[in-house]
């Protein structure tokens, strides 16, 4: 078989995730199965990072994927990539779960646990150690310490910026600003477009 010709044929190339999602929106279950393979790792990894508990993470991952199936028609390729759309849904779902399940006092306890024996630096390190993508790791290193801690605790641990502020003993406004300028720096470092 002529490899070059095969590679040049669009039929052999990997299908864009966005195209799959468009097919999913039309009720194509095979397209959904193909999409599942592509997104389940990132979705589960992110959900697990926020929720920690493995069985709860599985449950929420299932919810996210079923939600993707249900509302696939809302995906608009002109407004961003399919992966971003799926990951946004996954993060929102994981964070909503962690916040609805924990009463205020639980959350305080959680914050205390984070700041206590296993201090947040350790948490941040743990997360960083799990980062598989070299580029993300490299770009995270370009942030200031407060930017990196704020972004990491908010995104990977699902904390609100208020909780982050308490944990890092920083003014609210500072954390709000660091989340924004930290992400902007990451955006530029990773070369992300909207």
């Amino acid at each position, binding site marked *: 078989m002529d490899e070059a010709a095969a590679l040049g044929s669009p039929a052999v190339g990997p299908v864009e995730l966005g195209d799959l999602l468009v097919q999913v929106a039309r009720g194509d279950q095979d397209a959904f199965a193909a999409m599942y393979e592509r997104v389940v790792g990132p979705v589960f990894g992110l959900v697990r990072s926020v929720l920690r508990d493995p069985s709860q993470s599985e449950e929420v991952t299932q919810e996210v994927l079923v939600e993707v199936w249900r509302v696939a028609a809302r995906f608009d390729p002109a407004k961003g990539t399919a992966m971003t759309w799926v990951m946004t849904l996954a993060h929102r779902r994981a964070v909503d779960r962690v916040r609805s399940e924990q009463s205020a006092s639980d959350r305080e306890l959680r914050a205390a646990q984070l700041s206590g024996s296993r201090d947040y630096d350790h948490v941040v390190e743990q997360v960083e150690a799990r980062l598989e993508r070299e580029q993300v790791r490299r770009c995270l290193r370009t942030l200031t310490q407060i930017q990196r801690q704020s972004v990491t605790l908010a995104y990977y641990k*699902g904390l609100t910026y208020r909780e982050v502020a308490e944990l890092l003993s920083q003014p609210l406004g500072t954390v709000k600003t660091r989340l924004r300028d930290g992400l902007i720096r990451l955006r530029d470092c990773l070369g992300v477009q909207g």
Partner: protein
Amino acid sequence: MKTAELHTLTGAYALDAVSGDEREEFEKHLRACSFCAQEVAELRATAARLGQAVSEQPPAELRERVLRRIGEVRQESPGGRVAEEAASVRAPRGRPRSWHIWALAACVAAAGALGGVAVWQHQEAQDARQRSERAQDRAEALARVLSASDAKAVPGAELPGGGSGTVVLSQSQNRAALVVSGMPAPPKGKVYQLWLNDGGRMRPAGLMPPGSGSEAALLEGKLDGASGMGVTVEPDGGSPQPTSEPVMLVDFPA
């Protein structure tokens, strides 16, 4: 929360790090502020990269369960979809950079409660190919001031003959911009000149671009500790020192 503060919430919002109430309030703001919508889209795409970096395979049984489940769940149809989730509120991609200026200036104007301001950019009216390097530099510098993370909106006084202005300050950029709305055209043969106030001494800071009363203009020169700014009416081409009473005078917060 003041609108000027809302502009800085894009990061926290993109990371789902806001409370339920703030989320609601900010989503309302997002529908009106295309600058923030664009920024949120970019920051979400950035966050998604962070998420992908911790990818982890779940137990294989999950696949079976999910595939079975979708056979039972009815999909939303494209036509009958409910009000679009805020998650998909995004500005169109691929706009020219200068578009940000328009969008943000509109937000900033709203922050000063100037409602319904159409922002006008002098160079926007010209053919893009004819734009001078300098105009582009200025447009970019203006965009940087308006989008600086430390940008502060300082409402100015009402202008005589209607209209009003808001000064946007960025200490990190060491620059200021003026966003005006409904400013009457200057008398024939005259221009509006901008000044920075160095403790009582007025330093020339450029001319308002002619032609419209609703626009955003970058003040020329650096803030360098200026205590305020002013606008006067001057003969065409401007003056080295103010020759008339200011039509607007704004003190910067210390």
